[in-house]
């Protein structure tokens, strides 16, 4: 591994995966630095899992190149597999085996030396909080336990790069929080984490995020960069009475791109905040409060997706 000369754990250029006529991942390019927590954010079916599977060497790309830990995803998948930990979207441990048996199994698969085996096993059990359940069948454990145990088994061999595919799906908020603490801890030790999610709040925990939509990477950067640089429009928060009725009225105003219910009020995405503010005040009267706010990651995401849809639409009509 040419580790010292290369500061990137993952390098991807024009990576593509087609299934027949369907393009699941369309010429995606990005880099992930060593020790970074890189989030892949996108709706279901956007190509997150397909990308992560190609990087883990369990799915062959149909185009482009990529290296993970310095090894080529096309020609050296088995060398990649020795350097990564992968946790798939579906719970992937043996439910009829006990907690300890599952850990023992992966100890054998990763050939953990006998002198380290016990220490790693205890680490996983403690990390997952399964001290009292080490002899329980895995199938009866709750979601949070299963997830931490699966995570523990995936990183039993202390890989330098870990790939997590929607690791917190179906896990309660407390467990999610604990899980992210764990990822930060590993990141502090120099472990690179590549994680996919569709939770906006989780995306905020990442050092950098790639937004993927319909197989294409539509934005990449730190959460702050995305919020400030990728959003051309401005966001106004409108608090008023009967926001649902107001929605329709505001949408008819000029220069308004999008109105969405948000909590008690509305988020209005406008091309020009100043003009929109006065227009809305005129419309709703002085009882309404209109305020320009910093966009949330969700605003950015929705705005980027919609501008992509608008750009795609004429083409689709021509195709029809």
């Amino acid at each position, binding site marked *: 591994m040419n580790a010292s000369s290369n500061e990137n754990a993952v390098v991807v250029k024009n990576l593509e995966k087609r299934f027949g006529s369907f393009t699941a991942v369309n010429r995606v390019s990005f880099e992930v630095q060593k020790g970074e927590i890189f989030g892949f954010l996108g709706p279901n079916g956007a190509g997150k899992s397909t990308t992560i599977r190609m990087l883990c060497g369990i799915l062959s790309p149909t185009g482009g190149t990529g290296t993970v830990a310095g090894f080529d995803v096309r020609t050296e998948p088995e060398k990649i597999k020795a350097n990564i930990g992968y*946790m798939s979207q579906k719970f992937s441990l043996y439910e009829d*085996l006990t907690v300890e048996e599952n850990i023992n199994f992966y100890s*054998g*698969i*990763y*050939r953990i030396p006998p002198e380290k085996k016990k220490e790693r096993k205890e680490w996983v059990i403690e990390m997952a909080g399964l001290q009292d359940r080490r002899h329980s069948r895995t199938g009866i454990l709750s979601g949070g336990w299963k997830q931490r145990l*699966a995570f523990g088994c995936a990183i039993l061999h202390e890989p330098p790069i870990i790939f997590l595919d929607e690791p917190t799906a179906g896990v309660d908020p407390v467990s999610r929080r604990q899980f992210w603490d764990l990822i930060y801890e590993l990141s502090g030790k120099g472990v690179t984490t590549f994680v996919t999610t569709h939770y906006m709040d989780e995306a905020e925990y990442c050092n950098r995020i790639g937004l993927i939509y319909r197989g294409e990477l539509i934005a990449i950067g730190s959460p702050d960069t995305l919020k400030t640089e990728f959003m051309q429009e401005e966001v106004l928060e409108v608090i008023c009475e009967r926001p649902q009725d107001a929605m329709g009225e505001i949408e008819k105003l000029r220069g308004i791109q999008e109105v969405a219910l948000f909590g008690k009020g509305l988020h209005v995405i406008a091309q020009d905040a100043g003009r929109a503010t006065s227009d809305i005040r005129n419309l709703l009267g002085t009882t309404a409060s209109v305020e320009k706010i910093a966009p949330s990651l969700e605003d950015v995401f929705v705005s980027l997706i919609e501008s992509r849809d608008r750009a795609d639409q004429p083409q689709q009509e021509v195709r029809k």
Partner: protein
Amino acid sequence: MKPLRVWAVARNEFIHVIRDPRSLGMGIAIPMLLLLLFGYALTLDVDNVPLVVWDQSESPASRQLVSGFLGSRYFLLRAYVHNYPEMERAVDSGRALMALVIPNDFSGRIESGRLAPVQIIVDGSDSNTATIAMGYADVVALAYSQEVAMETTRRIGGRMIHTPLDLRPRVWFNADMESKNYIIPGLIAVIMMVIAALLTSLTVAREWESGTMEQLISTPLKGSEMILGKLLPYLAIGMLDVLLAVAMGQFLFQVPLRGNVALLFAMAAIFLAGALSLGMVISIVTKSQLLASQLAMVLTFLPSFLLSGFMYAIGNMPHAIQLVTYLIPARYFVALLKGIYLKGIGLEILALEAGLLTVFGGAMVLFTNLKFKKKLV
């Protein structure tokens, strides 16, 4: 190939089997049950043919004929009947397979040396059994005729005469010509073929269905290590089955085992490796437990049952079908088992069968390794 990884997979698979009563039942209980069932039910011998007798003559001569029938172990007297409807009812209802009608002038005709017709009615709905039963009746009638003829000659000529030909048949390998002696060894081969393929047909597909395979292929575990690790526990179960089956053959069915037991088990191991690999290939290709188990059943049961020479002699099949039988691995194992069991012969005669069986086993293991890819699609 790293032993630690093979061992991890083997231990894992072994735990699955012992924790899952269904696979344990399929691995051990079902083959033993099949052997019992087929071993007892699948007999081609015709013994104790149920017989009704309408003796209109009721004379010493007729009673002597009837006792000729009842004295052989092939016939069992159900009842004496006294009219046609009664006799018909017995045959119609299946209470009797054969009816013997002795006319009332029987005794007179015998004593006066005239031809004495005797009627035999046979239920021909199972033609095979009917043919065999009629053969038995022929033998009894012939013996009776001979006795009468000799008695007459003795009375006339005053001395014993002999029939000119004295045929002394001697049956080798299965002296009593009991069908279980050749059915049980063949049955072991057929049952093990089906069970072995069924057992492994679930292994890989189960991991694809539960999602554990996606995790497994993302590790450095090699395909060959996984396959070997998964084969080993089932090979152990298969060998245990063969051991139990041989023991049942020995103590329950009293089938003579004349040949080399070590050779038998060595051949069984090669055969099982091939059959288990076949099941695993099916599992790898289908990725579905239901489809894999059905396919394994279809691909093994009927071909092994019909084309292995277990039930029907391969030599009697049409030439084209005979060629097909070379593709049925059970064919070689059936030949080996029958040879070792009944003839007590070894590799000096069975070398071809043993060689082809080894080719099958090796090719299947190799093919399984080629078919398994550590990729999702």
